[in-house]
């Protein structure tokens, strides 16, 4: 279970955690995060956000709670330049966590956030008990 991994990592510094994307000096591993998001095939789920490295986790937590975030705010919170921030947000759009808002203009890109996940894996064999209940 994902949460068992979380609890087993309790008290460890970010660098000690197996999923952490931090460099040796403890800063955010931007290239590593890009690579992980590119390799990812599934949409981002609530349980993924819990395991994201800092400051990506807290930035996304903030955006999810508010429901929206601008590219400039995202870049500021991530301590990235606009170009780097855009690379990340484009991957987050591709993984359906962010959607480009209609209020975006030439000066600023705004994103709406939407966590998504199916509560049940599709394609799992149907158990007979549910047929009986139906």
């Amino acid at each position, binding site marked *: 279970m994902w*949460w068992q991994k*979380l*609890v087993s990592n*309790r008290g460890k510094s970010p660098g000690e955690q197996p999923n952490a994307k931090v460099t040796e000096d403890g800063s955010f591993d931007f290239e590593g995060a890009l690579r992980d998001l590119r390799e990812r095939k599934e949409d981002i*789920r*609530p*349980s993924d*956000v*819990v395991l994201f490295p800092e400051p990506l*986790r*807290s930035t996304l*937590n*903030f955006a*999810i*709670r508010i*429901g929206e975030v601008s590219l400039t705010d995202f870049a500021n919170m991530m301590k990235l330049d606009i170009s780097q921030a855009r690379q990340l947000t484009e991957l987050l759009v591709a993984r359906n966590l962010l959607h480009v808002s209609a209020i975006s203009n030439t000066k600023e890109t705004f994103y709406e956030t*939407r*966590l*998504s*996940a*199916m*509560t*049940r*894996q*599709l394609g799992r064999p*149907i*158990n007979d008990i*549910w047929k009986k*209940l*139906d």
Partner: protein
Amino acid sequence: MSKIVSVHSFRGGTGKSNTTANLAALLAMDGGRVGVVDTDIASPGIHVLFNFDESEMKHSLNDYLWGKCTIQEAAHDVTGHLGGEVKGQIFLIPSSIKAGEIARILREGYDVGLLNDGFREVVQQLGLDYLLIDTHPGLNEETLLSIAISDALVVIMRPDSQDYQGTAVTVDVARKLDVPKMIMLVNKVPQSFDLEDVKARVEQTYNVPVAAVLPHSDEMMILASSGIFTLRFPDHPITKGLRNVVAEISK
């Protein structure tokens, strides 16, 4: 500004639904417009506390998730069911209690993102001051989503070894989700326990403020979910404890 509040416990039987219904009643008594969503789709029950009969359930949360209705259409005004003087209003979004519909949602699953959309929409459309989310026990994607978008999380536990361990998981996850406010409630505490001592121990263990330590109550057992406790027993220690939780939520 409206607030979304999740009520959660790692284990079942802690009194989540009862607490949620009573918090909703207290908030509404103070004049609030309160929405209550039963996201415990696998084992719904909070509608019973509001004396809300299945025959009145025109639409449920299940219907919304299947695209059969809007979230507002699934919201039922249950204020008149409370049997007490309430200045505000309570809207209940119940989950279906039909076996086939529960089975369908478990079998087919649903996109938890629809919950997110629905929560925000119903807050706006009904002009709610508070949206209380009665969650499914344990941790799953929909519970994480509820916690992630909440302004406050009420964590309920009993003085029980299994609850102690599970609550640590909930608290860890809530911290990872940066919930702005976390409040603990210790429920069903044996009368022989020193309530202040329990409060101090729990606060020390989790480093989270405990808003109330509620003693086990025969009156609550006898009421047996057939009504809202705080309306029936306005001067009971449990009611006073729940008022403390409301005060924390409202801050």
